[in-house]
């Protein structure tokens, strides 16, 4: 399997953490963000996993899900649900927050953009008896949400004071050696900050504002 990643890209960090945690065997290639790896796509996209010749996986959550399945941890409806929430509810809010905080240094507005999704996560975690989102050990759901939130929540002062469950969960996931390694190589290396800035600049300006992600369970 070949895996293509680039620095500063939180989606690549997710996938790298999944590789580290599951022990999947991949040849990792560092690609330029503008490099076109998937020949059928008109725009460059990363991360890309090539499980076999001619097959390209380029949706980050599908890649993470696949890596976990290879290690014998099949997705459940509960993990599916978190992955879908991350892709459809959290990501739009997050892209807006990253634009505001990384490019415009508007921290308060960035916090507002994320308020709904973070409140939802806090309420969900407060009702869970388990240490992680769906189990006592980290699953694909934890890795995907952690990777998405890391660029914002690694600044501990960002979380509102009443988010102690999110804070504790985030700390637990960040402490996993797989996540340490992934964050280290994608975002915390020298130049990682500038690369994150470049990543955010290349993303389309967020056009929708979704603030009312509500609790489900």
């Amino acid at each position, binding site marked *: 399997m070949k895996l293509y990643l680039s620095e500063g890209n939180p989606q690549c960090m997710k996938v790298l953490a999944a590789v580290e945690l599951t022990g999947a065997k991949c040849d990792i290639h560092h690609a330029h963000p503008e490099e076109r790896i998937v*020949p*059928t*796509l*008109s*725009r460059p996209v990363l991360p890309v996993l090539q*499980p*076999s010749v001619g*097959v390209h*996986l*380029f*949706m980050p*959550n*599908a*890649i993470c*899900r*696949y890596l976990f*399945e*290879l290690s014998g941890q099949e997705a459940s*409806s*509960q993990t*599916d*649900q978190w*992955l*879908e*929430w991350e*892709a*459809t*509810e959290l*990501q739009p809010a997050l892209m807006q927050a990253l634009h505001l905080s990384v490019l415009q240094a508007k921290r308060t507005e960035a916090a507002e953009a994320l308020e709904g999704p973070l409140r939802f996560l806090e309420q969900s975690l407060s009702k869970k008896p388990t240490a992680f989102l769906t189990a006592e050990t980290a699953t694909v759901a934890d890795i995907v949400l952690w990777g998405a939130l890391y660029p914002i929540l690694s600044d501990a002062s960002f979380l509102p004071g009443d988010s102690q469950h999110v804070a504790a969960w985030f700390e637990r996931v960040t402490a996993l050696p797989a996540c340490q390694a992934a964050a280290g190589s994608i975002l915390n290396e020298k130049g990682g900050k500038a690369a994150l800035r470049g990543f955010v600049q290349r993303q389309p300006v967020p*056009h*929708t504002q*979704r603030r*009312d*992600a*509500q609790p*489900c*369970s």
Partner: protein
Amino acid sequence: MALKELSSLEKALGFKKPNKYSTQGSSKTPVLQSNSGPPLCGLLTIATHLVREAQRPELLGVSAEQRAVVQQWLEYRATRLDGCPKEEVRSVLKDLNQHLEDKVYLAGDAFTLADMLMYYGIHHLMVGLSIQEKETYVNISRWFDHVQHYPGIRQHLPLVVVLRNRLYPSGQH
């Protein structure tokens, strides 16, 4: 929108009794209250659950790799196609068209849940395409026609006319 789609999916999967759904939030995320366990939330999650319930696992892919490809196109549908701004539609259609160039269905030779949800999600765009545009996206048109004629899939949705023969020689538009 999502609720109609889930109801079509239930019929296509042969459910005798329809499930009851509610929605939440401004994005009208569907919620399924199940008898066993916590409620399920989100179109892809519920659709995947329904396929498992109907004991049609082949629709999710028969190998780990095929399952990943199916999930990829479900994720693509939910994040790139749904709510796609007008100016981005062409780029989505172009990518899909390229992907389908050497494939019968999204995940290769086998019909899967990815085709079903992509069909329901793209139908309104196909209805709006001119004949010339359908020729530009000739692989999507071919795939779309296969799916709309697949037993039990189309249901209440209007049939979209797709020409089998080119009206215009290629390369002129």
